């Protein structure tokens, strides 16, 4: 036999028989959903990364305490990347007898590589610039106020005269809340020649690169093993904790959605293949009877499926790519700036996954056909072979698991989904098994038609359980997509409520507190929060001076060698959660501390340990009285260490203020910083906007996926119900022949399907709620998330109604055909 010819002939006729069309559609959908979502996500992500690159002034930075060896720039050069050098250090600016400590940035040629440095000169209008010319500097407004000069004046830095060429309006790193001094930007060569970066100065060097994503990635890979001690790579994502969290969440959302669509398609494929195999049984028996070998039979079946799959994958791919182009065309703002090129990876992966889904879910029932007895040509009941465990049935689970593991891109998401779906499958099976047992023994008192319907479920136990499982899983997937994901997204949005603080103010003196509060109120500022801030140094842990080498977490060095910020408060600040111990209540007899969990892990601390902190000339030894978990992306001022207020008040300190200012008050804010020359005002609108932007884009992209997934879900439903319709043909015809009314028939069918729908819906609702809670805590880190009850409850009802309707409609068709036609065919 030529299996290919045979497969092609069979396909030609059988395509229109239902199962194969379902299989085809399921594959098209799976590939389309994956291709569209993965490609869209990848492009949106690149766009977001690109726009966020503005925040560090390049695509990637390598920062170090000493200038990097020249091989780094050489490598960037080789890879065709643009690059520039930065050096940040504190220095004092003088004009006459006035002075101000500034955070100086020496900028190399081409800075910023990404984003804008905008300045305003004396004439007013702002313009985008690069590094200042030799001999000139740009400064923050605050410096002009402090020194009492305007643009064009001459200032002294490092003993040399510079011309003040502009007032900084915007710079790539705006939004760094704890920059302790206003910014001054000068030319890198100037800083070198003046000797500002000589030995003993506290310089932080940074090499910035920008260019093609692939080259940037290559550079990062090259640089990682070559980093000198104390150097680290900064990518856009870790420049800002807020943004990074947003990235991760957004990506998880998109992946979750695409993954569920693929799994739904997999279930549809499995059901359709099951039904296809069933219908093929007699054909296989005949072929065997005529002398076909097992190999030929399997080859023909596999080829038939493959012939179906390849065009399905191609169409799915085309459809998916088309869809994401349409989305991009209609929602131009999804991708700010230039549209990134079409990435090849995601579409190819979608294609491969489509094939994996097909073979993983369809092969087991098909391969089982090789064991069909040729004697079946004479006796149709011969397929009731003694059951033995067939490892083939592990294949769909393996493929599903691998799919989750690969596509989830996040171990917690993978584990949550994998475990969730496994538990649901097992629960359905167990519950269904028990219920059917009960039905079999206790259903005798029900009215006739209903009893018959339920008896059907019990009689076709294996099929009923399979259907209930498929329904429960697909309804769960739909509920997670349709109910859980949107509510998680809402929770996420809520974290960025409209009055989220968009300005921070540092250096406010305690005696200015009241007048500042009045001024802010007059401005219309809301959500004002003020916390004291003292700066100290960690000198001992449990009486021993810490050494950076003693801690595996290399971030520890930042605090051991650098400064750290302390605060205190009567009440636990918002976005903080007490994990261990008690909050301060004024009854402390010795200095006490509350420590963030990250610090606890980093320095191996526990309740009762002591930390010695040097603030000014004073050493304070405080005991750890509580441990807090801090939500660092809350757009609030948060602290690793908080002292008890009694001790804190005795320390020299300033106030950190966060508030939300309505749009259009920048002029008043300008006046404010002139009236309080000592304060630094930090505008975080840019970051806030970007995070909102990500939430928004992810939300919209997820909406598109939902459409795919609903289609896949409906397909599963149809496939599941078509399988029972087949089974039912004969008995309905028989009942009709025996004189049953159409009404009695419908009642029997409705009873069966409502029961099936209720069972599946109930399990799906509980399962989706569980998965939602696990996702909120483990993956999205959203606290106190509770799945919405009403949508889930209505899901149960909707599932029952939908399943009943679909089943009833399918059966109605059969009930209308004259019984003889069916009986004769059987």
């Amino acid at each position, binding site marked *: 036999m030529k299996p290919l010819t045979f497969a092609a002939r069979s396909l030609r006729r059988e395509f229109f028989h239902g199962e194969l069309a379902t299989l085809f559609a399921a594959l098209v959908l799976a590939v389309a959903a994956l291709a569209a979502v993965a490609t869209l996500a990848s492009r949106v992500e690149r766009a977001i990364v690109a726009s966020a690159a503005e925040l560090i002034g390049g695509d990637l930075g390598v920062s170090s305490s000493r200038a990097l060896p020249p091989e780094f720039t050489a490598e960037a050069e080789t890879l065709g990347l643009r690059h520039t050098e930065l050096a940040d250090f504190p220095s004092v600016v003088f004009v006459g007898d006035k002075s101000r400590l500034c955070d100086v940035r020496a900028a190399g040629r081409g800075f910023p590589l990404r984003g804008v440095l905008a300045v305003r000169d004396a004439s007013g209008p702002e313009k985008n610039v690069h590094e200042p010319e030799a001999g000139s500097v740009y400064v923050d407004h605050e410096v002009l106020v402090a020194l009492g000069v305007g643009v064009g004046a001459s200032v002294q830095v490092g003993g040399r005269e510079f011309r003040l060429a502009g007032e900084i309006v915007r710079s790539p790193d705006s939004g760094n809340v704890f920059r302790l001094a206003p910014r001054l930007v000068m030319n890198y060569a100037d800083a070198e020649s003046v000797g500002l970066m000589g030995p003993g100065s506290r310089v932080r060097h940074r090499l910035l690169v920008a260019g093609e994503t692939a080259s940037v990635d290559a550079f990062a890979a090259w640089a990682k093993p070559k980093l000198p001690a104390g150097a680290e790579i900064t990518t856009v994502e870790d420049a800002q904790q807020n943004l990074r969290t947003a990235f991760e969440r957004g990506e998880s959302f998109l992946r979750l959605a695409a993954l569920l669509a693929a799994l739904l398609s997999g279930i549809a494929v499995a059901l359709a293949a099951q039904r296809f195999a069933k219908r093929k049984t007699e054909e296989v028996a005949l072929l065997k009877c005529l002398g076909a070998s097992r190999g030929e039979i399997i080859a023909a079946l596999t080829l038939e499926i493959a012939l179906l799959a390849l065009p399905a994958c191609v169409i799915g791919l085309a459809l998916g790519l088309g869809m994401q182009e349409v989305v991009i065309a209609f929602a131009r703002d999804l991708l700010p700036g230039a549209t990134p090129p079409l990435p090849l990876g995601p579409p190819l992966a979608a294609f491969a996954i489509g094939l994996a889904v097909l073979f993983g879910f369809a092969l087991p029932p098909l391969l089982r056909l090789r064991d069909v007895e040729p*004697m079946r040509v*004479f006796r149709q009941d011969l397929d009731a072979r003694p059951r033995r465990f067939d490892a083939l049935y592990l294949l769909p689970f393996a493929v599903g698991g691998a799919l989750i593991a690969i596509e989830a891109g996040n171990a917690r998401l993978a584990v949550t989904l994998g475990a969730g779906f496994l538990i649901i499958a097992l629960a359905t099976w167990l519950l269904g098994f028990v219920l059917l047992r009960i039905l079999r023994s206790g259903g005798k008192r029900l009215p006739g038609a209903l009893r018959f319907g339920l008896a059907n479920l019990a009689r076709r136990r294996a099929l009923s359980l399979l259907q209930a499982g498929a329904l429960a899983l697909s309804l769960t997937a739909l509920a997670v997509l349709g109910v859980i994901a949107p509510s998680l997204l809402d929770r996420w949005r809520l974290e960025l409520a409209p009055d989220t603080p968009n300005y921070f103010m540092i250096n406010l003196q305690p005696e200015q507190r009241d007048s500042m509060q009045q001024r802010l109120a007059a401005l219309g500022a809301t959500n004002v929060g003020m916390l004291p801030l003292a700066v100290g140094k960690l000198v001992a842990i449990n009486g021993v001076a810490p050494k950076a080498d003693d801690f595996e977490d290399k971030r520890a060095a930042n605090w051991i060698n650098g400064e750290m910020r302390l605060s205190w408060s009567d009440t636990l600040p918002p976005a903080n959660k007490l994990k261990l111990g008690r909050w301060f209540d004024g009854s402390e007899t010795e200095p006490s501390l509350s420590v963030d969990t990250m610090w606890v892990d980093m320095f191996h601390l526990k309740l009762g340990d002591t930390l010695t902190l040097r603030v000014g000339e004073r050493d304070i030894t405080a005991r750890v009285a509580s441990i807090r978990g801090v939500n660092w992306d809350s757009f609030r001022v948060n602290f690793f260490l908080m002292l008890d207020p009694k001790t804190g008040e005795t320390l020299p300190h300033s106030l950190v203020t966060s508030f939300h200012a309505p749009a259009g008050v920048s002029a008043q804010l300008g006046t404010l910083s002139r009236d309080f020359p000592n304060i630094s005002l930090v505008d975080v609108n840019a970051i806030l906007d970007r995070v909102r932007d990500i939430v928004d884009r992810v939300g919209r992209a997820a909406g598109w996926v939902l459409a795919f997934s609903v289609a896949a879900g409906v397909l599963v439903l149809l496939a599941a119900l078509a399988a029972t319709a087949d089974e039912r043909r004969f008995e309905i015809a028989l009942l009709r022949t025996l004189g049953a009314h159409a009404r009695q028939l419908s009642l029997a069918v409705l009873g069966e399907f409502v029961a099936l729908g209720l069972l599946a819906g109930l399990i799906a609702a509980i399962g989706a709620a569980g998965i939602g809670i696990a996702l909120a805590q483990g993956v999205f880190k959203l606290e106190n998330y509770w799945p919405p009850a009403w949508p889930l409850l209505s899901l149960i009802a909707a599932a029952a109604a939908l399943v009943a309707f679909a089943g009833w409609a399918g059966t109605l068709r059969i009930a209308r055909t004259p019984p003889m036609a069916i009986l004769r065919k059987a």
Partner: protein
Amino acid sequence: MPSESVLSATEVSKTVDGPDGRLTILDGVSLDVARGASLAIVGASGSGKTTLLGLLAGLDRPSTGSVTLAGQLLDTLDEEARARLRRRLVGFVFQSFHLLPALNAEENVMLPLELEGSSDAASRARDALARVGLDARRHHYPHQLSGGEQQRVALARAFVHGPEVLFADEPTGNLDQRTGAVVSDLLFALNREHGTTLVLVTHDVALAGRCERSLRLVDGRIDRLAAEGRGQALPAERAAGEGRA
């Protein structure tokens, strides 16, 4: 009469394990069919005729006893080897036709040739269809053909590759009398033309009578009384067969 045996069964028994314990379907059946001969197996429904046919054709293994087909002891062959043997030597006609619904008449007839790997399958299939009078219907699908026409396609398929032995299980069982007569005439005519050995299961006495010999199964055993004078059909059946022929 040719004397070389092409099919023989020795003390063949078949038991299956059912819910009420072991059930004996066939019990010590022996028979011998010479090349080119025709044998009818008759008996009441449930007497084990189909089971015996399946064992003779190598579709299943006997619980005890052995079957030899074209000189090959079937029990020594595995499922795959038996399939190869069938593809070469055996043709089938079934009560419910068993045409593949996805293939048209011609493709159905081509099936045994394609399994053999024959290169001129299409033209030979067309000839075979012409022989059963269905040349014009060769592109029709089974559902577009009547029962009699389907069975004629099945006959064409059974003979197309010139099998040594043809097994027919109630070939007219699903057909009305007239159509059944047409089909059985065709069956015997083809059988004669090809010189095929025929094993025919039926409970139609007239049909059985057209075979050279017949044997009767009763509860899985050969009815010794009826089989007396081996090679001779029962007088009544013979008479009925002649009446029809």
